[in-house]
């Protein structure tokens, strides 16, 4: 008897025992769903982060009061905010690069053009002229800030697409004016459209000079500045970082031997932190999937035992006409594996669909998690083997006469 024969038998028994088969398939599908779903999510997130970091470039790094991804139990209050004065001193002390820009932002601003107004949801960013170079932000129309814009503290703004759609519909906004709070700004540039990440539009923002921002729009509560820095060349990155540590310690008045009261992130440290997060999702998905699959395995063993019992006469007939133990074993093995793989296939489809829906909801580009899919199929096959051993042995060792007599 060949494998094809057994696979047909397997589908036969799925068809005959629809409910039972459905429940089994479902439990496997859930397990695989968890694994593949987590896998897809991780691959997609990794894809996104890699893309974003590539946009920024590998020679940029950031200083802020607290780490970008905070670990549990680290108090925020113990560190004093990074002030504008400290930033100015830092900038003066930094000799290795000019590409430095502090920045700060406030969410939930309303931007107006005459009668037209945005919702109270615009992200207002204050920064300096090098911000765009350092963070890989492209300006598609108009120009970025000049040194003059910043030192003269001009009322100029660079705006995102969403703002244009809302308050400058079908117009070229360059040269026009908009108002935020008490201030009026001339539009000098348009930011490259970025689309949405995690369901949040990246284009609903306007950028103005830092000092304007701090004077008129900053949150009254201790707003701490973030500083972005870019080394001139890759070879200079580590010396520039050393420089930045030194300058910041002086600016923050940290005595030798005392710990830093600020945090410095490079692409690498961010990737590291994210990969920790990814590992968590992966491990979580894997383990919950694994536990579901173990439960499914126990379920399958049970179902196959019931199947063996129900088909005792069939087994008796097969043995009576000359089926050897091996054939009976194979039949039940292949049947179990087939059920597991069909369940796995459903799970993979569910997982991909689930991750797809989630990803498109939050604006992630889907990455097909090929390793996880292959891994799931392998796991399902092994599951079938393990779950099938006992029922298959039981079937193979039935006594033909007793089996034929079974009612």
């Amino acid at each position, binding site marked *: *008897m060949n494998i094809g*024969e057994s696979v047909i038998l397997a589908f*036969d028994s799925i068809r*005959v025992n629809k409910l039972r088969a459905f429940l089994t398939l479902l439990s496997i599908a859930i397990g695989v769903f968890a694994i593949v779903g987590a896998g897809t999510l991780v691959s997609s997130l990794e894809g996104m982060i890699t893309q974003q970091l590539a946009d920024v470039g590998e020679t940029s790094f950031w200083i802020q009061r607290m780490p970008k991804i905070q670990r549990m139990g680290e108090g925020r209050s113990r560190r004093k905010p990074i002030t504008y004065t400290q930033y100015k001193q830092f900038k003066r002390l930094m000799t290795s690069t000019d590409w430095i820009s502090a920045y700060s932002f406030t969410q939930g601003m309303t931007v107006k053009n005459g009668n037209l107004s945005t919702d109270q949801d615009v992200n207002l960013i204050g920064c300096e002229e090098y911000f765009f170079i350092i963070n890989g932000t492209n300006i598609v129309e108009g120009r970025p800030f000049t040194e003059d814009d910043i030192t003269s503290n001009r009322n100029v703004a660079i705006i995102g697409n969403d703002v244009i759609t809302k308050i400058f519909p079908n117009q070229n906004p360059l040269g026009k004016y908009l108002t935020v709070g008490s201030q009026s700004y001339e539009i000098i540039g348009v930011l490259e459209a970025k689309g949405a990440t995690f369901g949040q539009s990246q284009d609903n923002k306007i950028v103005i000079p830092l000092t304007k921002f701090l004077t008129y729009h900053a949150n009254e509560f201790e707003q701490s500045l973030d500083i972005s820095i870019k080394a001139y060349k890759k070879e200079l990155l580590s010396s520039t970082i050393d420089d930045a540590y030194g300058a910041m310690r002086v600016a923050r008045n940290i005595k030798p031997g005392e710990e830093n009261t600020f945090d410095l992130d490079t692409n690498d440290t961010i990737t590291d932190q994210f990969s920790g997060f990814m590992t968590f999702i992966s491990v979580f998905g894997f383990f919950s999937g694994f536990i579901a699959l173990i439960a499914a395995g126990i379920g399958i063993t049970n179902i196959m035992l019931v199947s063996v019992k129900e088909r005792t*006469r*069939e087994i*008796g*007939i*097969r*043995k*009576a*006409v*000359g*089926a*050897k*133990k*091996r*054939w009976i074993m194979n039949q039940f093995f292949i049947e179990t594996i087939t059920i597991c793989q069909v369940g796995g296939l459903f799970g993979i489809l569910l997982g991909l669909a689930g991750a797809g829906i989630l990803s498109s909801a939050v604006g992630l580009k889907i990455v097909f998690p090929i390793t996880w899919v292959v891994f799931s199929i392998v796991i399902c096959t092994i599951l079938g083997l393990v779950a099938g051993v006992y029922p298959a042995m039981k079937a193979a060792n039935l006594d*033909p*006469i007793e089996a*034929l007599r079974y009612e």
Partner: protein
Amino acid sequence: MDKSNTIIDIGNISKVYEMGGEPVYAIRDISLEIKKNEYLAIMGPSGSGKSTLMNILGCLDTPTTGRYFFKGNDINDMTDNDLAEIRNREIGFVFQTFNLLPRSSALKNVELPLIYSGMKKSERDEIARNTLIDVGLADRISHKPNELSGGQRQRVAVARALVTSPSIILADEPTGNLDSKTGVEIMHLFYELWKKGNTIILVTHEEEIALHANRIIRLRDGLVERDEINHHQRIE
């Protein structure tokens, strides 16, 4: 004594079951020799051990004591797999209750022994088809058992027993579940097979049926009561 024509040779075969600590003899001390192209009927009242003997002869069951040589080979020396192979190649068993796979077509049922003998799909398909035609079921090949009459089901069972061209056909009350007219049809089939040179052992409790055989063995309480040549063999 010339043993070259002997298919089955059993000596002092007993089958004992423990029932509540007491040994119960299903058959006791039976010795038999069955030669090629014999047509043997086994008779006896209910519980006399007919089925037990048949199952042992068909290598489905093993005796508690005694020796059994099938074509000169000692059954006691054989493994489960060896016995499966003998059942597959040498023995065609027809059960009183048909024992067909309910969800498979007549063709699939008849093919089953050939699957286990490792025959190629195309080959076994043709042989199974021809065997079904031989038993008069040319127009019922793809019917499932529950779409067939009792007599037709028994024909399928006979076809399955014949399909491997076994050395011997064992039939345990093949007409027991059939009306007399269909019973006659099945007996006719056996008669034809015997005429072609097959060896047949048949269990029955009807004299009418037993008269088709050329040798009749009568069992009582697990013992052979009489073993005689039938001089009045009925020719269909």
